[in-house]
Structure formats: structure tokens, C-alpha cells
């Protein structure tokens, strides 16, 4: 009776029965990876946006914050900004509703963070026979759950302006309701055709369906099958993230914004929420329309195109897949930033007009046509 036999018995036991402790560890590791990555990306975006806009505008951009003489291309401004936000005076107007005023930034941040739990950020990994999927909550209805949670965030913007006791904030919250609720409808309508085509209301189902190829060599991505849906969803995502050209809710030079009375970390909650929303929508766009973690022609057996096939190690494949969704997310985040610094702001009524007069009919039409084709073929 040697120790080795006991050890191998134990391993056998854990692998076969997958006790709860393994499941817990796996979940915590996944939470750590995903939220670590998202938070880091959102943090880097705060300074990345300033750097990219500087690049577009013929400026230098932030480059002064340093630690021990190293400026790291201005990356330490993330830390400097954070410290500044914490040190600022935490101001609350006298006639504000204390509880809701405090809750507003939390409400606009937490549901958005919760949505990430449904997002598959990789396929699966097999470590010594133990298989783990890169998804924190695996639900059959994850698409609808995502929209359910992300639409809760509108309450944050709405409550912030409404409870601050400031008329400009009030105008901001009216704008927030009108704008964001209209575009939520369009957003869901634009995604329905995608669900129909891949016949799955779960994100992992949609992604794995995009791994196939049309006529052998064109990846079956959403952008190719549903370009119209992509345009509408992208527009709606821009609106939902409350950024230029749809930043009327903030409308800095017009109504100063729904968070006009929020300062210090309360304001930082809104600002950081905006960047997290960018990451979220970039991830969703890459999942719905660009194959999520799919790398073109890469499957379990390696790269296959026609008769040619190159085998790929499992761990390399996992890394490639994780890289695939990361690169797509970063690219779309950058596009969000480029658009913000290129276009002027819409007027409030033009946004609603664009929604109800153009995007809504187009997306309904798209839905009907797609339904017809899915049924017919």
C-alpha cells in the first residue's frame, strides 16, 4: 500500500465525480480571469481614450504621471486619476434624495458588471482530464438575460438626475429615459434575426454555430449573414453606452449632464461604468457578429481548410481562442473611441427620430425577412 496508489485514487475520484469544491475553485478562477481582464481593459481605456484622441487631434496627450521616473507612455495616469477621484470632495446637494442619490452610481455599475457572468470568453480547456468551459454562468437564455440586466443600468442614469435636486440633472434623466428605452427595443429587435439564424438563444450556442464555414471557406459569422443587424446593433450599442455622437444624456455643453451634482467616487462610478459598457458592447458585438472566441478554420483537430489541415496543440488552441476574443474586443473598443472623437453630438429629438422612424422599421423588416428565409430553407 504505497502513497502513490492513494494519490492516484484521489485524483481518479476528483476527476470522475467532480465534487463541489472543484466546481467552486473553477468558478472563482474564471471570475478572476474575466473580471480582472475587463476591469484592466476598462482602466486602460480611460487613459487609452485620452491617448488615442490626442493622436487624432495632433496633441501629445497625458504623459506626466510617473513612478520612480518611469512614465510608461502615460499609463500611470490610470492610478493618478483614481487617486484624484478618491481625494475629491464628496458633495451632496441639500435637497437631494440621500438614499437614491447614493444608489444611482451603484445601480448604473453593478448590472453591467453582472452581465459579464453570462459571456463565454473562450471555448473550453482540458487540464489533466478535467474540462472547464470559459463561461461563469451557462444559461440557455443568456441573450435575453444579458439584455434584461443591461437595461437595468438605465435606472442609474435616470435616478442620478432625478434625485439630485438639480433641474439640469432632471433634464438629463428625462433624456436618458427617452433615449435609452427606445434603443433597448431596437437593440433586442436587431439581435432576434441572429438568434433565428443560429437557432439558439444562448451565447455559447451562437458562437459555436459561427465556427462553421459557408461553402467551405467563408466563416459563418454574423457580420456576413446579418450585416444590417450589425449596423443597427452597433448604433444601438453606441447609444446605450451614452457616448458621442449620442451623448445627449451627458450633453456637457448643453445640460452638463445627469450626473451634474455627483462628485468624487460617485462620479467615478458613472465614468467607469461608461468604459465598462464599452467593453461589454465590444464583447457582445464580437460574439454576435464576429464569432466571439472562434478563430477562423480552427477546430479541435487544428486548422482545416479544404483538404489541408495543420494540427494544433490543445493549449495553444485555448490561448488562440482567448486572444481572438480579446483582440476583437480591443479593436471594437478603439472603434468606439474613434467614433466619439470624430462625430458631433446629435440633437435629442434627432436621436429619437432616428430610432423610431428609421432603425425600428428597418429592424422589423429585417426580422420578418430573416424569419421567412429561415422558415423557407
Amino acid at each position: 500500500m504505497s502513497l502513490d496508489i492513494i494519490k492516484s485514487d484521489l485524483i481518479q475520484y476528483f476527476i470522475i465525480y467532480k465534487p463541489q469544491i472543484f466546481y467552486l475553485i473553477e468558478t472563482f478562477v474564471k471570475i478572476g480571469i474575466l473580471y480582472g481582464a475587463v476591469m484592466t481593459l476598462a482602466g486602460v481605456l480611460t487613459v487609452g481614450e485620452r491617448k488615442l484622441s490626442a493622436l487624432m487631434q495632433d496633441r501629445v496627450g497625458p504623459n506626466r504621471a510617473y513612478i520612480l521616473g518611469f512614465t510608461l507612455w502615460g499609463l500611470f495616469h490610470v492610478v493618478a486619476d483614481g487617486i484624484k477621484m478618491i481625494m475629491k470632495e464628496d458633495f451632496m446637494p441639500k435637497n437631494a434624495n440621500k438614499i437614491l442619490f447614493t444608489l444611482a452610481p451603484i445601480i448604473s455599475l453593478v448590472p453591467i458588471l453582472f452581465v459579464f457572468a453570462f459571456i463565454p470568453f473562450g471555448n473550453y480547456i482540458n487540464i489533466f482530464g478535467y474540462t472547464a468551459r470559459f463561461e461563469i454562468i451557462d444559461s440557455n437564455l443568456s441573450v435575453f438575460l444579458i439584455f434584461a440586466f443591461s437595461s437595468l443600468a438605465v435606472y442609474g442614469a435616470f435616478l442620478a438626475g432625478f434625485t439630485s435636486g438639480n433641474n439640469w440633472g432632471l433634464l438629463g434623466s428625462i433624456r436618458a429615459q427617452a433615449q435609452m428605452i427606445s434603443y433597448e427595443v431596437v437593440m433586442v429587435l436587431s439581435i432576434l434575426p441572429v438568434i433565428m439564424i443560429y437557432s439558439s438563444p444562448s451565447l455559447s450556442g451562437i458562437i459555436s454555430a459561427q465556427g462553421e464555414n459557408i461553402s467551405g471557406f467563408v466563416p459563418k459569422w454574423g457580420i456576413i449573414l446579418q450585416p444590417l443587424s450589425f449596423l443597427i446593433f452597433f448604433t444601438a450599442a453606441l447609444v446605450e453606452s451614452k457616448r458621442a455622437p449620442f451623448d445627449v444624456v451627458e450633453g456637457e455643453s448643453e445640460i452638463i449632464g445627469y450626473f451634474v451634482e455627483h462628485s468624487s467616487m460617485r462620479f467615478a462610478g458613472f465614468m467607469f461604468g461608461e468604459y465598462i459598457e464599452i467593453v461589454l458592447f465590444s464583447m457582445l458585438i464580437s460574439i454576435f457578429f464576429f464569432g466571439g472566441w472562434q478563430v477562423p478554420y480552427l477546430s479541435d483537430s487544428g486548422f482545416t481548410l479544404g483538404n489541408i489541415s495543420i494540427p494544433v496543440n490543445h493549449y495553444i488552441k485555448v490561448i488562440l481562442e482567448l486572444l481572438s476574443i480579446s483582440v476583437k474586443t480591443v479593436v471594437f473598443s478603439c472603434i468606439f473611441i474613434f467614433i466619439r472623437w470624430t462625430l458631433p453630438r446629435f440633437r435629442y429629438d434627432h436621436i429619437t427620430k432616428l430610432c423610431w422612424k428609421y432603425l425600428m422599421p428597418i429592424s422589423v423588416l429585417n426580422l420578418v425577412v430573416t424569419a421567412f428565409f429561415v422558415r423557407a430553407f
Partner: protein
Amino acid sequence: MSLENNITKLEDGRLVLNMGPSHPAMHGIVRIILTVEGERVVNSEVEIGYLHRGFEKTCENSNYNQIIPYTDRLNYVSPFINEVGFVMAVEKMMGVELPERAKYIRVIMSEISRMTDHLTCIAANAMELGAFTPYFYLINARELLYQSGDMASGGRVTPNYFRIGGTSFDLTPDFIEFTKNALKKVDSYLSDTRKLLERNRIFYDRLKDTGKITREDAVSYGFTGPLIRSVGIDYDVRKYSPYLVYDRFDFEIPVADGGDNYARFLVRMEEINQSRKIIEQALLQLPDGPIDVDDYSVRLPQKDEVYGSIEGLISHFKLTFEGPKTPKGEIYFAVEGANGELGYYIVSDGTHKPWRVKVRPPCFPVTGALPRLINGGYIADIVATFGQINMIGGELER
């Protein structure tokens, strides 16, 4: 508590909003009391006076050359034009005829100022409408022109360049070359901006049909400058009563129809081009010669005269301590400022100091008509209109 208050205010249908003076779009100095229904402006009252510095009263206690630096602060985006207007009014009262070179320098500097003013106006307007990138392009262009003015006068924003009867210094030898290069670069910045703004659907929708005024109203309110030209009237002081050497240049007065913000934007864009044309022609024609009148009662004598002759020394002393003296009388003289007709009305009692100075700032009538321009529009339109009328606090409130 506040929730109930706000709801009752909304159910009343109308909300009274205080826009400014510390509001990002009000440039820090104007307060508009708005009555809004939802986002639509029902009524508005414009309140000015937050930047009143007593310019006119200060002038009464200074001699004529001492007033010139004050005029820089009137329209602080186009300081040279203010100086030209003032010194020319005084010169006309004294009957001084300038040498050719001085006239050309004044034209060049005025047009540089007109360009900086229009660039700033369009840039700030675009920025307030959310287009940040054109703002930086145009501000870069403006900076080049500021450097050009700096090279001649030694001051970027407040040059204090002209004197009664002349110019403080001659142009530096590399001024012409630098300005020509700067104009080329300004052109490339402008074409970048054009691509971003001119046919941009969002920008067009924001400006088109907002802040509209009819031809008759514009005339009766006393609009001048780009605002009167945007309703189709080609009134321009440079053409209607040419001063300096403006009649020697080939340039057009751009007009547009519509009387809305987009027409104003187009007029300003084209005026930048026309100013560039004038500067290029003036730089070609620029004659050599003296930059000051040869009259010791007006302009300081040369240094060798001061040290070498009793007349030179005593004129230097008198001019430094008392300044030039005007005959008794009154005068109104107007130049085409960047925003319109910039007039100086000076009453003299025959001493070295004016008895009364009154400035006709081009943006005063326009700001008076502001409620008419913004009533009935959206709150967001106020930003577009306010940016395009280019109200400058310094000259509005003096």
C-alpha cells in the same frame, strides 16, 4: 422631497431654468433665464454685464496712446482690428495721413486677426456641438497665425502693436516667409476641418434652420458682419467705405441665404479664404518705406533726432508725458471687425485725453436679438446659436 418638487414643476408644464453665467456654453459671462416646456424654449431673457470693466470710463483718464493696449482686450480674439479701428479714428480726427507701408501692415494684421477670430468661432462652435477634433485642428491653425502676429508685434494675444500715426516696430525680415508658410498650413488644417464638418449630416442638422432670423429683422436689429451677410445682404465696411488700402485688393464679400446657423458657418468659412487672399496680395504689394508719419507732434522722433536736436528731444518728452493732442470735435469711425462693424465714437475737448469714448461693438445688437433667435427652439439649439453669433464678452460689455 426633491422628487415631489420636481414633479409638481413638470406638471405645471413649464420649468424656469437659469442658464449661466457659469454654464459651459455661456462662455462664462452671460446669463439666460429660460422658460422651458420639456426641452422647448418658450421664453428667454438675456442678462449681460458680468464682464463690465469700465473700458470707456478708463479711456477718459488715459491719453490716446495709453488706450491702445486697452483696445486689445475688447475683442480678445482679433486684437489687431480693435487697435486699427481706434488709432484710425484718432488719426482721422487729427488729420494724419499714413505712409503706404504702415497702411499695408495694418491691412495684413487686420486680416490675420479676422482669420483668428473666425477660426476660434468655428472651432468653439464645433466643440460645443461635440466635435472635438475639428476644434484642435482649427486651434492649431490659429496658433500659427498668433505666432505670425507675435513675430511682428511681440505679443500673442495682446499685441499693442499700432500707435497713433504709425506702428511700434517694422515687420521682421522673416515675417513674410513665415506668414506665407503659416497660411499654407492653415489651408491644410481648414480642408481637414471641412471634410469633418461641412457635409457632416449631424453637424448640418444641428445648424440648419436653427437660430433663424429674417432679412428684415436682421436689418432692423442692426446686425453687421457675417450675420448680416448670412441673410443675403453684402454689407461690409471694407467695400462700402473703404479705408486703408482695401480698394486695391481683389476679394469678394461672401453672402449666404437662409439666415440660420449653417449660413453663418458657411460665410465664416469663406471669409477665412478671402482674408487669406487679401494677405497674400498685400504681402506681394508691400512697399518699402517709413512706417511712421514724419510729424513730431504725433509720432516719436527717431533716436538720433532725440539725442541730436533740441526739437527732437522736446517732442520726445512731450509725446511721452502728454501724448498726441487732438483738435476739439467729435468723430465716428468704423472698421470691419471680425464680427461686423466695429465703430469708435470719440469726443475730444482739445486735450491729450478723450472726453468720451464710445465703442459700437458688433455683437451687441446680435446679443440683443438673442431671445428672438432661440425662442421656440430646443435647449440644445441655444448652444449652436450662441456659438455662431460669436458673442465676445470683452467688446460686448466693455
